[in-house]
C-alpha cells in the first residue's frame, strides 16, 4: 500500500497542473480576502449597521472564507487523480502494476491528503495575507494572536484537505474529466450556494442545509459566512467532519462498485 501511495503522490506532483491550480487559488483568495476585509471595514465605518459583525467575529468570518470560496480548487485537483488516468488512459498502466481496485482507490484517497494539505496551507495563508493587513489598518485588528482564530485557521487547512479527498472520491465516480469539472464547478458555484441560502431561509429546511457538504465544512472550520449564529446554524465540528467523511465514503463506494468494476479498454 505504501508503494501505491508513493506512486500516486508521484503522479500528482510530476505534472504542472497542481501548481498552476495552486497559483490561481492563491491569487483568488488573496483578492477575496482583501475585498471582503475592505468592504466589511468600510461598511462598518460609514453605515454603522448593528448586525454587522465586529472585531474578532468579523476577522473570523473573513478568515473562514478559504473553504467556501476556495473549495473548488482542492475538489478539482483531487478529482484529477482519477479523471486524469481515464482521460490519458494511464489507468491501464496503473492497474497493471496494481490490479487491486481497492488498493488503487485507497492509495489515491490517501495520496490526495498530500495535495490537500498543500492547498489548505496555501489557501488559508492567502486569505489571511489578503485580509489581515486591511483588518489591522481599517478595522479593529487582525486578531492573528487569538487562540480561537488560530484554531479556525488550522481547521481551515484540515477542511481544505478533506475537500481534496472528497474530490478524489467524486473522480472515482465521474471518471470523465470534463464532466467531473463541470459538475464540480456547477455544484460549488451555483447549486450549493443557492441551496444553502434557500434552505437556510426557513427553520424547517435549515436543518437539511446543515448537511450540505459546504455547510458541514463550515462546521469543521467553526464559522460560516452564511450563518448568522454558528452555534445554531451549523453542526458541531465533529458532526461536520463526520458528514464530510460520509460523502467521501459514499462516493468512494460507488466508484469502487460501479466505475472500477467496468472493463478497462
Amino acid at each position, binding site marked *: 500500500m505504501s*508503494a*501505491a501511495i*508513493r*506512486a500516486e503522490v*508521484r*503522479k500528482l506532483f*510530476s*505534472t*504542472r*497542473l497542481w501548481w498552476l491550480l495552486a497559483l490561481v487559488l492563491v491569487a483568488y483568495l488573496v483578492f477575496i480576502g482583501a475585498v471582503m476585509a475592505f468592504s466589511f471595514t468600510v461598511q462598518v465605518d460609514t453605515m454603522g449597521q448593528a448586525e454587522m459583525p465586529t472585531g474578532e467575529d468579523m476577522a473570523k468570518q473573513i478568515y473562514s472564507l478559504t473553504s467556501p470560496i476556495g473549495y473548488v480548487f482542492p475538489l478539482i485537483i483531487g478529482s484529477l487523480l482519477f479523471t*486524469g488516468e481515464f482521460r*490519458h*488512459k*494511464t489507468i*491501464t*498502466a*496503473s*492497474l*497493471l*502494476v*496494481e*490490479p*487491486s481496485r481497492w488498493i488503487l482507490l485507497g492509495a489515491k484517497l490517501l495520496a490526495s491528503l498530500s495535495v490537500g494539505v498543500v492547498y489548505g496551507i496555501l489557501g488559508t495563508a492567502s486569505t489571511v495575507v489578503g485580509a489581515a493587513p486591511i483588518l489591522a489598518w481599517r478595522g479593529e485588528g487582525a486578531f492573528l494572536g487569538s487562540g480561537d482564530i488560530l484554531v479556525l485557521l488550522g481547521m481551515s487547512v484540515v477542511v481544505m484537505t478533506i475537500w481534496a479527498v472528497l474530490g478524489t472520491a467524486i473522480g472515482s465516480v465521474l471518471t470523465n474529466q470534463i464532466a467531473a469539472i463541470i459538475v464540480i464547478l456547477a455544484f460549488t458555484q451555483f447549486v450549493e450556494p443557492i441551496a444553502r441560502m434557500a434552505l437556510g431561509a426557513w427553520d424547517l429546511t435549515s436543518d437539511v442545509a446543515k448537511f450540505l457538504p459546504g455547510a458541514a465544512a463550515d462546521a469543521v472550520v467553526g464559522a460560516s459566512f452564511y450563518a448568522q449564529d454558528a452555534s445554531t446554524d451549523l453542526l458541531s465540528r465533529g458532526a461536520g467532519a463526520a458528514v464530510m467523511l460520509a460523502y467521501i465514503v459514499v462516493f468512494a463506494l460507488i466508484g469502487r462498485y460501479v466505475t472500477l468494476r467496468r*472493463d*478497462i*479498454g
Partner: protein
Amino acid sequence: MRTETDIVVDHLTKRFGSVTAVDDLSFTVRPGAVTGFLGPNGAGKTTTLRMLLGLVRPTSGAALIGGRRYEDIERPASVVGAALEASSFHPGRSGLDHLRVYAPQIGVSDARCHEMLELVGLADSAKRRVGGYSMGMRQRLGLAYALLGDPDVILLDEPANGLDPQGIVWLRRLLRIFADEGRTVLVSSHVLSEVQHTVDDVVIIAQGRLVHASSLDGLRALAETRVRLAGPDEERLAGLAAEHGWRVERVDGGLDVFGVSAAQIGAAAFAAGVELHQLADVGVGLEDVFLRLTSSPDAPASRGGVAA
C-alpha cells in the same frame, strides 16, 4: 535460468453487448519463443490481451499466465510486462517520470528507469514531456515501461506501429534475445509480414475465433505453390490437369494449378504434347495464406500445420 511461464487461453469468450469480440478462443504460448498473435482489425487481439491482463473481465473461459489469473499474481509487473497502446501517457509528464511513477509498485529503482530509457534509445529525451514525443518514441516508452520489472512474460500489442525500419530491426533482435533467455513473448499484429521474420510460432484469429495455431513452418506448409498456365487450347490444358488430378482454378486468360511445381507441369505438358504459351510460378506467400485463413469466417480451425 528464468522461470518458465506459459500462457494458457482456455475457451475464452468476451461479449460486449451484442458484439462477440472473442469467441471460445483457446491457445497456448510457450516460453523461449516469440509467438505472433495475428488477425485482421477487430479480430479480438487487444481484447484477448486485456483479458490476460485482468483489465477486461471474460464473459466465460479463462486466461492464465503461469497457471494464475493476472490479478492473483503477486507483483504482477515483475512477472508480466505489457505494452498495449502507444498513446497511454500523460502528455505533461516526462518520459522518465512516466516510468518513475510506476517504479515503486513494480519494486524497481529510479536507476532501472534510466537503464530502460537507455535500452529503448530514449535517454536523450528522458526529461522531455511525452506530449512532444513522436509515435515511435511513445512506442519505445511503452516498451521501456513493459520491461521495467524484468518480466518473464512479455505481451506487446502492435509494437511495430510507428517504428522506423531501423527500429523494427532493433525490436526484432530484442525480442529474439528475450526468447532465447527463456522468456515468453507474445506480439500481436494485423500484418503477418511485419512479424514473420521474428516469430517462431503463430496464433491466428479472425472474428474472435482461432483459425490457426502452429509453428511458423507449420504455416509455411499451408502455402501452396500456384502456377499459371496458358496455351492455345484451354480444354487440353484442363484435360491435362484432370488426368494428373491437379487442383485448378480457371482464371482470366488461363488456368492456375495448385500444389504442383512448374517443372512437373512443364514435363507433363511436354510428355503429353500440349502446347504452352505461359508457365509461370505466381507463388503464394505466407501473406496469402494469412489472408485466406482470416477472410473466410467459417473456415474450420487448423492446428499443427495440417491443411484444412
